[in-house]
């Protein structure tokens, strides 16, 4: 069925307003967007890793979720989701449950790229019928913007601060989507918030309704950590895609497919200059940093194009 923005927006929200996430936060947009891809007739159990999203959407005695929800720890969201799914399978087999449930996990980059990677890898390998959604905001935002393995090179984070002897994070960002794809899962994809949300919606729908363990990596900017004007959330996502810093693609049954190719690939400065965490890259004498970042993006982009041929 073709994507109809108006129709999708008319669906009732499954993440209620009044949660405590910041204005201009990408995580809530990711959650609402992914949950909107659920068919209204299906119920879901949402699993959450510890992080911004969890502490802001489920402060006892309130919950922002219309569906059942479980959080237990930082590093085990995928295993937790797998446990619920295993219970569902057996209870369904025993005739104790009639309705269809879908299983969706949300974790930030800290809980996914780093501490939760083992649990995620295990769940993907075991092939639970679930979707793991990483809302990637490129640092440990909840605890005060410490670097993660998703933090890009040169970013000014509180554990990789810019100083007289330091230019921010020295290492590159880990490519998690490729790591998950190497698990031979039926579906893995990268997306973010572009235009009318068609890309996010279609990928989320595919991930939820493809049998087996699926993975969605959603670039979800954070105004506190990235230091941008909150109103510019969507603009930053567009720039991430147009500069090819965050390419949109999917891997379906081993076939790589590019979802979006910018008409004109923008220089990386366009993405960097709107963010406080990269401010030092624009001071005199630091031109090499921008060159380095550009070179890396170009190389990664070319490799991706080769894979998607």
């Amino acid at each position, binding site marked *: 069925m073709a994507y109809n923005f108006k129709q999708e927006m008319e669906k009732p929200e499954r993440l209620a307003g009044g949660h405590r996430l910041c204005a201009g936060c990408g995580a809530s947009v990711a959650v609402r967007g992914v949950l909107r891809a659920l068919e209204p007739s299906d119920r879901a*159990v949402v699993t959450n890793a510890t992080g911004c999203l969890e502490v802001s959407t489920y402060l*006892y005695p309130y919950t922002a979720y219309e569906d059942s929800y479980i959080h237990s720890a930082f590093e*085990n969201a995928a*295993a937790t989701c797998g*446990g619920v799914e295993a219970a569902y399978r057996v*209870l369904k087999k025993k005739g104790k*449950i009639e309705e269809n449930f879908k299983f969706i996990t949300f974790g930030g980059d800290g809980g996914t790229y780093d501490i939760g990677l083992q*649990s995620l890898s295990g*769940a993907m390998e075991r092939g639970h019928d679930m979707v793991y959604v990483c809302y990637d905001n490129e640092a440990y935002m909840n605890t005060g913007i410490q670097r993660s393995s998703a933090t890009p090179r040169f970013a000014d984070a509180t554990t990789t601060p810019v100083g007289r002897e330091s230019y921010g994070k020295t290492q590159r960002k880990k490519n998690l989507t490729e790591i998950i794809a190497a698990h031979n899962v039926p579906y893995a994809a990268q997306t973010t918030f572009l235009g009318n949300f068609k890309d996010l919606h279609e990928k989320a729908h595919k991930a939820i309704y493809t049998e087996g363990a699926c993975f969605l990596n959603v670039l979800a900017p954070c105004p506190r950590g990235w230091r941008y004007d909150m109103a510019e959330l969507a603009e930053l996502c567009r720039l991430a895609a147009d500069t090819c810093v965050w390419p949109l693609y999917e891997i379906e049954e081993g076939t790589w497919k590019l979802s979006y190719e910018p008409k004109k690939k923008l220089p990386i400065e366009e993405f960097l200059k709107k963010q406080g965490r990269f401010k030092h890259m624009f001071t005199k004498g630091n031109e090499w940093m921008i060159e380095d970042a550009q070179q890396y993006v170009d190389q990664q982009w070319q490799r991706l194009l080769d894979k998607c041929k």
Partner: protein
Amino acid sequence: MAIRDRLSGNEAVAIAMKQINPDVMGAFPITPSTEIPQYFSSYVADGLVDTEFVAVESEHSAMSTCIAAQAAGARAVTATSSCGMALMWELLYVASSYRLPITMALVNRALTGPININNDHSDSMGARDSGWIQIYSETNQEAYDNFLQAMPIGEHKDIRLPVMVCQDGFITSHAVENMDLLEDDKVRDFVGEYQPEHYLLQKDNTLAVGPYGISAYYMEFKKQQAEAMKSAKKVILEVAEAFEQVTGRKYGFFEEFMMEDAEVAVVLIGSSAGTGKAAVDALRQQGKKAGLIKIRVFRPFPMEELAEALSHVKAVAVMDKAESFSAAGGPLFAETRSALYDLPQRPNLINYVYGLGGRDITVTDFEEIYSQLDSIVETRQTGPVYRHIGQREADGAEKDVTYERYQMENNNWRWQSNGL
């Protein structure tokens, strides 16, 4: 008619699990508990159970799976040992605070540092404050019987706490004993169906589990857990009584052996009780009034009942198969001494840490301990309270017979001052 069989402790627990037919098992192999999920996965492979067997990538995920499955409305079990439980540590607290009656077969084994695969209680004793009910077994029969009682206890509406059923690694887990098994239908009747009130997969009543418990609420959660643990004492005895009606086998918080007229007593946990009882038998033949208490339920701790049982004794040795590095004694000693504090006349108490990392404890060791207790009764002087027994260096007691015996019996071991 009960079924007579010869089984190892691991197999006995696996058979209990098979008869219960739980909904989900999350497991990762670790010696000496590995056989439990191994046996169980063969039952799954042969279609003897309906269980979803989730062979996870770590114990951390095993406990995560159990928490999630139990929260989803299923009955979940796991088995582990030692470092495996240590890796679950964070989630042990989560399971109990979410009030999820998961059942764990813990095959006790020393914790690493240095690595050791043999039995002591440092794993479960370390987890004693995690909010799990802890029941210990002396024999294979007790491991089986305790496992069958675990779910009716943990799932009781006033309790809703996870339960770990402990047995001694290798000593019971791998040794084969004659035992009585219940018929499958009797087990099913006794254990019953799991009927949670609230769960994630309820179609019309969604549930959120695992909130951010801010300061305004956190203490209430903890108080309720503490209350549940207090209530567990009553339920444990009720379930034991029901079990006795089915099997004729009687269980309580602890077993009293020759305690009616005992003047000196040993308090301990697990399989060493058998060795201790043999020593008591020998001493009784010499006319000595020796007794023994084997703790079955360590959490909740049967404080008043234990104090009552020891109130007429003159000297007590509490035996800990775990070091807690408090510099003042082991965990069972601390609890027992605290239990006795309110007695108008307290017996003298000493503590022996023993059997660490699988170090043997013999009838001779127990006889030495009882003789120490006799001299305490005579002199009314306890001497050093916090002692170790069975290690190379003499400790606490005036002389270390164990060390001398090792030298005599194991001269090929070549104990050297510079190490093994």
